[in-house]
C-alpha cells in the first residue's frame, strides 16, 4: 500500500522543493506558487488520508495496515525497518494532522501574506507535517523518535521564525532544549526497552510485554522514562514551561504545532504504548497525577494572563493535562477523543485569535481589547464556538470528550477520588478562563487598541475558520472506533449527581467569569500576590532559572578557558621555570665550572659507597 508512503512523502517533497530553490537560484518563487506547493502537498496528503479511511477503514474497526519501506539498519540483534503501521489510532492522528494541518496551511496563506519569509515559512510547515506524519505512522520506536525530534526541530524553527528578535530565538531554544530533556529520558527508555526485550518494533514489543508480570520494575522504569519524553513534548509538569513562551511564533504555527498536533504527541506516545503503561500501576498513577496537577496549575495560570495567546497556551497545557489524566485512568480512547476534539476547537481558537491579532495590528494584550464583537462578528462567532467547546458546554464536542474522561476517572478508582475532583475543578477553571477571555476581548468597554480594529479576514482565512467551527461543534459525533486498538472499555454507571456536577462545573466557571469581567470592571495591574504567582506560571521559570540555568551558565562561563588546560600550561610554565633555574648554572665562570666538576666527582664517589 504505497498510498501510505505518499502521505508523509508529499509534504516532504513540498519541503524539498521550497528549500532547494533558494539554494540554487537567487530569485524567490512567486508567492502563489509557494502557497500552491505548501498547501497543495498537505491537501493532497489529507485527500489520500481520506481516501485511505474511506477504502480501507470505513466500517472496519479492526483494520490494520503494515508497510515496510526498507530495512533501516540491522546490527547484531538491533533490527529496524523503515516501516509504517496503520490502525485506527494512527488514522485518527493522520486525519487530525493532515486535516487540521491543511486548514491551518490554508489559513496561513492569508495570515502570512505579507511576510518576507513566506517561502521559508511554508517549507518549515511542510517539514513539520512530514515529521508529524512519520511520528504517528512509525511502526517502531526509533522511527517514532525520528518524527518526534523532527517536529521538535520544526517547532524550534517556527517559534524562532521571526529571527531578528532575540526574544523569539530564546523562546525557540527554550522549547527545543526543554523538550530535549524529556526526549533524552525517552531515548534512555528506548535503550532500556531494547536491552530488556531485544526489540524496538512496537508490535513485537507489545507482544513481548504479554509475558511480563504486572508491576515489573523494569516495565515501570521504562514507562516512566517514556513518560518523561511525553511530558516534555506535551508540556506537562514539570517540563511545561516552554509552551507559553513558544507563543512567540506566528499564530497559525501556535495553532498547528502548539495546540493541535505536536504537543499532543506525548498523548499519542502513551496511547500507542498503552500495554506498557497498563502493566504498571505506578506509571499509571504517575500519568494521572501529572495530568491532574498540570491541568489545575495551567488552568490557574490561564486565569490571570493578559496576553491572548498565552491564555490559550496555558489552556492547551491544561487540556493536555486532561488527556494525561484520561490516559492515567486507562481511558485511552477518551484521551484520543479529547485529543481530536481539542485539535479542532483549539486550532479554531488560535486561528480566531490570529484574526483578532491581525485585525488589531499585532496587539495581543486582552486588557487593551474589548467590545470587539460588533467590529469582527465572524471572528467573534468562531471564538465563541471555540470557547464553548473549550469550556465543554453541553452538546459541543468538548463536552463529549471531557465528560467521558471525568466518568472514566470516577470509574477507574471506583468512586470519589482526587483525580476526578481535580478534573471537575479543572472544568470549573476552564469555564472561568475561557469566558474571561471571551468577555474581555469581545464584550465590555472598548479598549485602547479596539478603536482601529479592522476585519483582517480574507477568503483564505475565513474558509478554515468556518470549517473548524463546524468541526468543533460537531466533532463530538465523530468518536472514532478505537476499541480494536485499546480493547473495549467497560462502560461505568456513576451516580447521576456525578454527571450533574460535571455538567455544572463549567457553567459555574462561566458565571464566575461573568461576575469577574462584566459585572465588575476588570483592571489590570492590581493583581494579588497569588495572581502574580499564577501569572508567572507558578514560578517555575524562576525556579529553573535559579536551580539549573544560572548555575550551568555561570559554571560554563567560569570554565571558559578550560581548567584542565591549566594542568598543561602549568606544566609548560614549570618547565620554563626549571629552565631558568638550571640555566643559572651556566654562568660562564670557569671557577664555578671547576667547582661543579669537583662537587660532581665527590658526589659520585659518595654515591659509590651508597650503591
Amino acid at each position: 500500500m504505497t498510498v501510505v508512503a505518499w502521505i508523509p512523502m508529499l509534504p516532504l517533497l513540498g519541503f524539498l522543493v521550497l528549500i532547494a530553490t533558494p539554494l540554487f537560484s537567487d530569485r524567490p518563487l512567486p508567492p502563489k506558487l509557494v502557497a500552491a506547493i505548501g498547501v497543495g502537498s498537505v491537501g493532497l496528503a489529507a485527500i489520500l488520508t481520506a481516501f485511505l479511511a474511506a477504502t480501507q477503514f470505513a466500517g472496519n474497526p479492526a483494520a490494520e495496515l503494515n508497510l515496510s519501506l526498507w530495512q533501516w539498519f540491522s546490527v547484531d540483534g538491533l533490527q529496524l525497518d523503515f516501516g509504517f503501521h496503520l490502525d485506527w489510532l494512527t488514522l485518527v492522528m493522520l486525519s487530525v494532522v493532515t486535516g487540521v494541518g491543511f486548514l491551518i496551511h490554508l489559513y496561513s496563506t492569508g495570515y502570512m501574506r505579507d511576510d518576507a519569509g513566506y517561502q521559508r515559512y511554508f517549507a518549515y510547515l511542510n517539514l513539520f507535517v512530514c515529521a508529524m506524519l512519520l511520528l504517528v505512522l512509525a511502526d517502531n520506536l526509533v522511527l517514532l523518535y525520528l518524527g518526534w525530534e523532527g517536529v521538535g526541530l520544526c517547532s524550534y524553527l517556527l517559534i524562532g521564525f521571526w529571527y531578528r528578535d532575540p526574544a523569539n530565538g530564546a523562546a525557540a531554544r527554550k522549547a527545543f532544549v526543554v523538550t530535549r530533556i524529556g526526549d533524552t529520558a525517552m531515548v534512555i527508555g528506548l535503550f532500556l526497552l531494547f536491552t530488556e526485550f531485544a526489540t524496538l518494533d512496537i508490535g513485537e514489543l507489545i507482544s513481548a510485554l504479554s509475558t511480563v508480570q504486572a508491576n515489573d520494575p523494569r516495565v515501570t522504569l521504562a514507562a516512566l522514562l517514556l513518560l518523561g519524553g511525553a511530558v516534555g513534548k506535551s508540556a506537562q509538569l514539570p517540563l511545561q514551561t516552554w509552551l507559553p513562551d513558544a507563543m512567540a511564533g506566528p499564530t497559525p504555527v501556535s495553532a498547528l504545532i502548539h495546540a493541535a498536533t505536536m504537543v499532543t504527541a506525548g498523548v499519542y506516545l502513551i496511547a500507542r504504548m498503552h500495554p506498557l503503561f497498563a502493566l504498571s500501576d505506578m506509571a499509571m498513577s504517575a500519568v494521572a497525577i501529572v495530568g491532574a496537577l498540570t491541568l489545575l496549575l495551567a488552568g490557574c495560570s490561564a486565569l490571570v494572563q493578559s496576553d491572548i495567546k498565552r491564555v490559550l497556551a496555558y489552556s492547551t497545557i491544561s487540556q493536555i493535562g486532561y488527556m494525561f489524566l484520561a490516559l492515567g485512568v486507562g481511558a485511552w480512547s477518551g484521551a484520543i477523543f479529547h485529543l481530536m476534539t481539542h485539535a479542532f476547537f483549539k486550532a479554531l481558537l488560535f486561528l480566531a485569535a490570529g484574526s483578532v491579532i491581525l485585525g488589531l495590528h499585532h496587539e495581543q494584550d486582552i486588557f487593551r481589547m474589548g467590545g470587539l464583537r460588533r467590529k469582527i462578528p465572524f471572528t467573534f462567532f468562531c471564538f465563541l464556538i471555540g470557547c464553548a467547546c473549550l469550556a465543554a458546554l453541553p452538546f459541543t464536542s468538548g463536552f463529549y470528550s471531557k465528560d467521558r474522561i471525568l466518568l472514566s476517572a470516577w470509574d477507574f478508582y471506583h468512586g470519589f477520588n482526587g483525580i476526578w475532583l481535580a478534573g471537575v475543578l479543572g472544568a470549573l477553571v476552564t469555564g472561568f478562563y475561557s469566558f474571561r477571555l471571551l468577555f474581555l476581548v469581545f464584550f465590555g468597554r472598548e479598549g485602547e487598541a479596539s478603536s482601529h480594529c479592522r476585519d483582517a479576514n480574507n477568503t483564505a482565512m475565513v474558509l478554515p475558520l468556518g470549517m473548524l467551527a463546524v468541526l468543533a461543534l460537531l466533532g463530538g459525533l465523530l468518536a472514532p472506533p478505537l476499541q480494536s486498538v485499546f480493547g473495549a472499555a467497560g462502560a461505568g454507571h456513576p451516580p447521576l449527581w456525578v454527571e450533574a456536577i460535571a455538567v455544572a462545573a463549567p457553567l459555574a466557571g462561566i458565571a464566575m467569569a461573568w461576575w469577574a469581567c462584566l459585572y465588575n470592571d476588570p483592571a489590570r495591574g492590581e493583581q494579588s500576590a497569588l495572581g502574580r504567582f499564577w501569572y508567572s506560571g507558578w514560578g517555575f521559570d524562576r525556579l529553573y532559572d535559579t536551580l539549573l540555568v544560572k548555575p550551568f551558565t555561570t559554571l560554563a562561563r567560569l570554565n571558559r578557558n578550560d581548567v584542565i588546560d591549566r594542568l598543561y600550561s602549568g606544566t609548560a610554565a614549570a618547565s620554563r621555570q626549571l629552565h631558568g633555574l638550571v640555566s643559572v648554572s651556566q654562568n660562564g665562570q670557569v671557577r664555578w665550572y671547576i667547582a661543579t666538576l669537583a662537587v660532581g666527582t665527590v658526589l659520585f664517589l659518595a654515591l659509590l659507597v651508597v650503591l
Partner: protein
Amino acid sequence: MTLLAIIAVLFLGGILAWLSEHWKDGASRWVALLSLLLAIALLGRYADHTGIATATGSAPLWWDSLQLNWIPRFGITFFLALDGLGFLLLALTLAMGLFGLIATWRDVGFRRGFFYFNYLWTLAGVAGVFTAMDLFLFFFFWEVMLVPMLLLIAVWGYEQRIPAAIKFFIFTQASSLLMLIAIVALVYLHYSASGQLTFNYRELLAARLPPATSYWLMLGFFVAFAVKLPALPLHTWLPDAHTQAPTAGSILLAAILLKTGAYGLLRFTLPLFPESSLAFAPVAMSIGAASVVYGAVMSFAQRDMKRLVAYSSVSHMGFVLLGLYALNAIAIQGAVMQMIAHGLSTAALFALVGALQHRLHTRDMGELGGLWGNLPRLSAIALFFAVASLGLPGLGNFIAEFLVLAGSFASSRWITAVAATGLVGAALYALLMMQRVFFGGERSPHQNSGPPADLAPRESAALLSLAVLLVFLGLRPQGVFDTAGPAVADALQHIDATVAGTPDRYGAPPGDTGAVADAADSRWPPSNPERGISP
C-alpha cells in the same frame, strides 16, 4: 599494489604540487585535485567489496594486501592491507580531502604550492595509517602525518598559530612515544615467548602476555589514541589547534586525524589486549561519557565560533570512545558510524566557519549576528549541519549516537545515562551558535564594505553533497554496517573469546608468566645469521 598506488599518488602528488607552483601560478590546486581524484578512482576499484554481509565468514578478511620486506632485522615488513573498516575510513579520508580542497579552493594565497604539498602529505600519512598492518609501519605513518599537519597550522594558521601548532605536536608526539614503547614491548614479549620476531599485526594478535604487563602496554596504546581522539583530560590541544588551523587544516584535523585515534583503538588496542581492555572498559567508558558532557559544556561557553565547533568534536568523539569500550557490536558499529558522520558534519561546520571568517574576518560570536538576512544560503546550510551535530534523527549522526548509546546501555546503564545528557548539551551549544551567529539582529562587523557575498555555487555544491551524504547515512546506513561488519566482528572476537575464557588466548598457567619474564635475558633481536657484531 593498488593500496601502495593510492598512498604513492598522494605523496608524489604533493611533491608535484609544490613544484608545479613554480611553473604556473595556481597549478598546484589542479595537481592536488587530480591526484585526489586519481586516488579516489584507485580506491573505487574496491567498491565491489562493500556490503558483503557479515554472515559469509569464509570470505578472506583482507580485501587486498601487500607485503614487502622492509627491515628484516626486526621482522618489520611493509605490510599494507585493506578491509571494510579500512575502506570506509580511507574513503572518508579521500572524500574529506577532496571536500577540503574544493571548499577552500580560493582561500590559500600564501605559498600555495607548499600548502598543497603539506595537504596531500597529511592525507597520504593518514591513508597509510588506515592501511598499515605492520605495527612499525603503522607508527611510521602515524608520525608522518603529523609533520605536514604541523606546518599547515604553523604557516597558514591564524593569530596564535605557533603555540597551537607546538602544543598539538607535543601532545601527539609525547603520547605516541608511549605507544612506541608499548609496541616494542609487545613485540619483545611475543618474541621471547614464541621465538618469532615480528611486527605483523595478525601474528601479534596471538601474543600471550602476562596480565599486568598487558595492562600497561594497553595503556600505552590507549594514551596515544586517546590524545588523538581526544578524550577528556588529554583534549586541550584540540581547541587550540582547530581554532588556529586554516580552514582546510581544520577540516583535515576534525574529519580525518581524530579518526585515526578511534581507528587505532578499534584496530589495535581492543584486539591486541582483550583482557586488559575488558578490565579497562569501565574507565574508558567513563572517560568517554565525561568527554561527551564536558565537551558539550565547554562548547556552550565559547565565544569563538571555531572553538565551539572544536569542543563539540570533543563531545562527539566521546561517543566514539564510549561505544568502542562498550565492547559489543551495536555500540562499536555506532562508533564507526560516528567517525564517519562526525567527519562529515564537523568538516562542513569548519568549512562554514572558514567561509564566514573569509567574508567577515572574525570568528567572535559576540561580533556576529543576524547573518540569515544577508547570507540565507550559508545560514540554511549551517542550520542543517548544526542540527546534524546535535544528533537529529534522520541524519547519520543520530544513527551513530543512537547505536552507541543503545549498545553501551547494555554494558553500563549509568555511564550511558550520563552520556545521554550530552544530547541536551549538544542542543544547547548548537542552537546557541545558530542564535548568536545567524539569528538575532543584524550585526555586521564591518559596515563599510557592503553586505558579504553568499555562498558561491562551488561552496554550496560541496556542502550540499555532504548534507546529502549525511541524510543518506541517516536513512540507509546498512551499507556502512555491512562493510565494517567483518572487521568489527573480528575485533570483538578476541574480546568474546576472553570473556568465554578460551584457553589458547587467556589464562596461561602461572608458570608461563615467569618464563616470559626470564626470557628477557635471551638475546634480542637475534643477531644476524652471517656474523654478529661482537665475538
